[in-house]
């Protein structure tokens, strides 16, 4: 039995020992916004926040999250309002097919928590662990700049 707070809600479920956090979120709780894009912790599509810090949930056991708090894309906005990162991704066209987007946004939230006013180059380096095949990253960088209330160049 694991007890995990997910998007502010207490959850408690019986799971197999080897259950990954991403499958706990997706298959047990039915929160399918978080995606799986690889099997080597390379792509970042599964990025969620664990106690406020980004982790790749394909490489965390649900058991390791026992007693901790997880935030997924479904918990990013509050009271029907978009989170500034969500709003900026839409405004700057920081997404195309949308598959990397939940993970990319969670990594962006984590980045801005640590570095509220990053430069474009700092954003690029910080998001190196999150792959996108569609956007060429340009507008993702712009979205993070926008979300940090800085000038969007480029």
């Amino acid at each position, binding site marked *: 039995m694991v007890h995990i707070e997910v998007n502010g809600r207490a959850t408690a479920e019986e799971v*197999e020992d*080897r*259950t990954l956090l991403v*499958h706990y979120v*997706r*298959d047990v709780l*039915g929160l*399918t*916004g*978080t*995606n*799986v*894009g*690889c*099997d*080597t*912790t*390379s*792509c970042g*599509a599964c990025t969620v926040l664990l106690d406020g810090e980004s982790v790749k949930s394909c490489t965390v056991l649900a058991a390791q999250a026992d007693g901790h708090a997880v935030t997924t*894309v*479904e918990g*990013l*906005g509050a009271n029907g309002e*978009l989170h500034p990162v*969500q709003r900026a*991704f*839409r*405004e700057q*066209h920081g*997404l*195309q*097919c*949308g*598959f*990397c*987007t*939940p993970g990319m*946004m969670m990594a962006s939230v984590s980045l801005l928590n640590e570095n509220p006013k990053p430069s*474009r180059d700092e*954003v*690029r*380096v910080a*998001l*190196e*662990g*999150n*792959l*996108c*095949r*569609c*956007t*060429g*990253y*340009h*507008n*993702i*960088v712009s979205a993070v700049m926008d979300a940090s209330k800085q000038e969007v*160049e*480029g």
Partner: protein
Amino acid sequence: MSVMGTRVVRIEDQKLITSGGVYVDDLREPLLNGAAHAAFVRSPLAHARILGIDTAAAREAPGVVGVFTAADLDITKADDDPRTEPWLAGDKVRYVGEPVALVLTEHRYQLADAAELVDVDYDPLPAVIGFDDAVNGDTLLFDGTDSNVAQRHGGPFGDATFDGCEAVVTHTIVNQRVAPAPLETRGASCAWGEDGRLTAWLSTQNAQIGRGAIAAGLGVDPALVRVVTPDVGGGFGAKIGSPDEAIVLGWAAKRIGRGVRWTETRSENLTSMTHGRAQRQVVTIGGRRDGTVEAFRLYVEQDMGAYPRAPFLPTLTELMASGVYHFPVVETESVAVCTTTTPIGAYRGAGRPEATAAVERAMDLFAAEIGMDPAEVRRVNFIRPEEFPFTTASGANYDTGEYAAVLDKVLAAAGYPELRAEQVKRRESGDVVALGIGVSVYVEITGGDASGESGRVDINPDGTVTAYTGSSPHGQGLATTLVMLLSDRLGIPMDRITLRFGDTDEVPKAVGTFGSRSLQLGGSAVAQAADKVIERARELAADLLEASPDDIELNLADGGWQVRGAAGAGTVSWSSVAERADPPLSEDVWFADGKPTFPFGAHIAVVEVDTATGKVRVRRMVAVDDAGPVLNPLTFRGQRHGGLAQGVAQALLEIMDYDEDGNPVTATLADYSFITAAELPDFELVDSETPTTRNLLGVKGIGEAATIGSTPAVQSAVVDALAHLGVRHVDMPATPQRVWQAINDAKEAV
């Protein structure tokens, strides 16, 4: 004011940024309740005979619902061609990743455990890796053939083609095998309903083509198959139609009497989804020392992988061989072979990036040979604006082009003279970091299949619109663009228009999305349907307003019908017109009038190469991409950004590689150098809009253009950085190892 040409944020995004897209693996459809999970057991060997498959242990594993092999399948393929690909390999495997068995379990985690227990007895055969091995080796992939050559086209070459040329250069160029690698891997779910119909949810670019393939594969009436496309996490050409796996899943769902769901792993994706490119080319170019090219020859060796799935690739490369140039003589030939590797298929550009890379590298080699600036050599040889429509020596009929204009624009935007001056300065100072400037001017073909597209527009009695497109939006922003187009034509706000697509019950006839065809064909189709709706509505409005239809106009500002010149005399709404319509106000069209169009552009890449380590850093990417009138600059630029990134990726990083035994050595994302944000600069985009006359919107496709232009620009920039060291060519990907090697080889040659 018209919404066309303005920056409109996407209608697709709200769901994608809040709850996330609903991809195949996310489906919670009632028909899939209790569905079994599926995994394919795949060949670990490049080439082997299958002596036997023992599934007994796997069948006993926890949660196993079924284990099936080729021997169980009672569906057959017409196999009059000895190179026919089996659904599941029964007697022989021909690449690592080829499916051999299907395992079905109750739970996802039981799949890997059970699959491991399927015991396949392989008798290894020699691998066939690369063109030379396929042609010269003793090993044949297919019994009943006498050669691994699957296809020849074009040729023969003339004996005296280059006689009289003042300068002739020839070079071998490798356009390496790469992985499309959409972020969402392939997936499919299948379930038969009580009505005897199969529903297949596919991650596909073409639901209708997928339905045709599944129905044919299962030997059932297409009316008994419904394909539904959920959100698709990227395709890039590698999700055209249906994967064979979906047909096996459809069969299995019937056999076990319940639904099945399949999502491949990334490692599986990198060996079992088609790869792209995989050409080796020999270019020969000759002409005068004033820069005039007199003859160009392109010989293409296409590696098709194990099964010839994409015979159109090398011939499309031949068709586009001469690019933006008016060469008096063009000769092409292609030879395509089968090797024991993953089959090759379409990948962003599909045949055209290979053509562009060949001719653009040839132009650089020719420029270096005669000591002329590469931009100037290009200018001398362009097809001039007054020559359009222009039929090339290879038989392509170009619509419109302003090649010198886009070159001028990109040179000005990049500050070309200043860059050259900086390059000279660095060389003179002996800077270990060399500056390279790569110029590429390209033309490509979009909507090249010329098979049309469907579009339907219904005006509902409440004045809302339901539109149906045969195209398949999956990230490009096409849904937004098509809704903008309809709003603009009908005078109905975007939020009152719903776009439906990707469900064969709703859109029975369609081609779908590939080859950058969607806006020019799918867009034209819905526009044409809207125009027909307007003409019918005009008659109905005329009745209501008691005026002649000739005097009735649609006020686009508020979507009201009124008598021309008498706006105050009363209007009728779309809703009143639609309420009156019997039969309902609906028009369904097949836009068949769409001839291929030819987008073009010019790119400049600026790179810095550390000559001590061979490491390349892209400093700038400057791009002019002309695809006619831009409907939504936001998504238009987005398509170019993505295209640019994939071009840089191929030029510098990505390669799907095999060892001599046919083992893929880049089969995970830990090994495959998928490009990241940290390896790319901000992109500098310059506008240019030259309409085509070949569809009613005047538009050309933009999905692939920037990949086609950027790849050779980056490659050229790397070579240019090293030109003063005597380097004339570096094959892609220009990894530090290769660049360092090229520098050292050039030193030793001196």
